[in-house]
């Protein structure tokens, strides 16, 4: 086998591996979507299609905006590593982690100040949905922390950053889930 043939095989292998990584990640998102769709539908089953008046709308809007902003910083981190700008990449990862922590803090405040209890039909849905979503945010923060640590040690480059891309896609997915949870939990037919 010639050197050229070996290199071509290695290229093919890398291409195939990248496609498999992408497919695996999207299938994971699909399977997670079933969980979150089930949770969203249970909210309507338990509490109907109205939102109680004592839901904290200001806090809901604030944490939604923070998570949205964190998706923007995550996007910028990925764009930075794709052009080989490590310093900007690390800065935006730090911002994303910080915003994620603020989001979790906001959920914690929401939980501790909510005027409805977990035994109310709406409260059952609210605490379950925000709790499971927040656990995903926390795991995302952990993975972003790992990406930051590895990035700081010189891992990832413009040519090779699947680890960054996968984690940031996960972060965006968590944001997509909240895009639906926000109206379902806070806004729909608010009385």
């Amino acid at each position, binding site marked *: 086998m010639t050197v050229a043939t070996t290199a071509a095989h290695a290229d093919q292998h890398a291409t195939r591996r990248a496609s498999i990584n992408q497919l695996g990640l999207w299938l994971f998102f699909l399977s997670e979507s079933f969980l979150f769709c089930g949770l969203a539908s249970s909210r309507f089953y338990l509490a109907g299609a109205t939102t109680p008046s004592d839901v904290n709308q200001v806090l809901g809007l604030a944490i939604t905006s923070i998570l949205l*902003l964190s998706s923007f910083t995550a996007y910028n981190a990925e764009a930075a590593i794709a052009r080989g700008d490590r310093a900007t990449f690390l800065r935006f990862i730090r911002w994303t982690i910080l915003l994620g922590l603020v989001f979790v803090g906001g959920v914690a405040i929401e939980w501790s100040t909510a005027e409805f209890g977990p035994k109310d039909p709406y409260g059952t849905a609210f605490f379950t949905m925000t709790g499971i979503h927040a656990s995903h945010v926390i795991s995302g923060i952990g993975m972003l922390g790992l990406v930051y640590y590895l990035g700081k040690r010189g891992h990832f480059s413009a040519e090779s950053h699947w680890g960054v891309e996968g984690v940031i896609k996960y972060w965006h997915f968590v944001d997509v889930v909240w895009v639906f949870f926000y109206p379902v939990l806070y806004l729909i037919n608010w009385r």
Partner: protein
Amino acid sequence: MSSEPGVKHGSSAVRRGRFVFLVLAVLTAVEYLIAIEVGPNLPILIGIAVYKAGLILWYFMHVARAWRGEEESA
């Protein structure tokens, strides 16, 4: 693993990301105002949420190249 062409060209990717973020922020504000001002609002809020999710999937998550080979996206 390389990213899609848009992500590789730094300044255009950043501009696009900023624009998408602004649209998402405006739509979030619109959702909030609808909740405050409009009575039965389920269909319109779900419609806005679907549009917002589509923007994130398309521009931030690059769903279009999810099943494409690396050679096509490089």
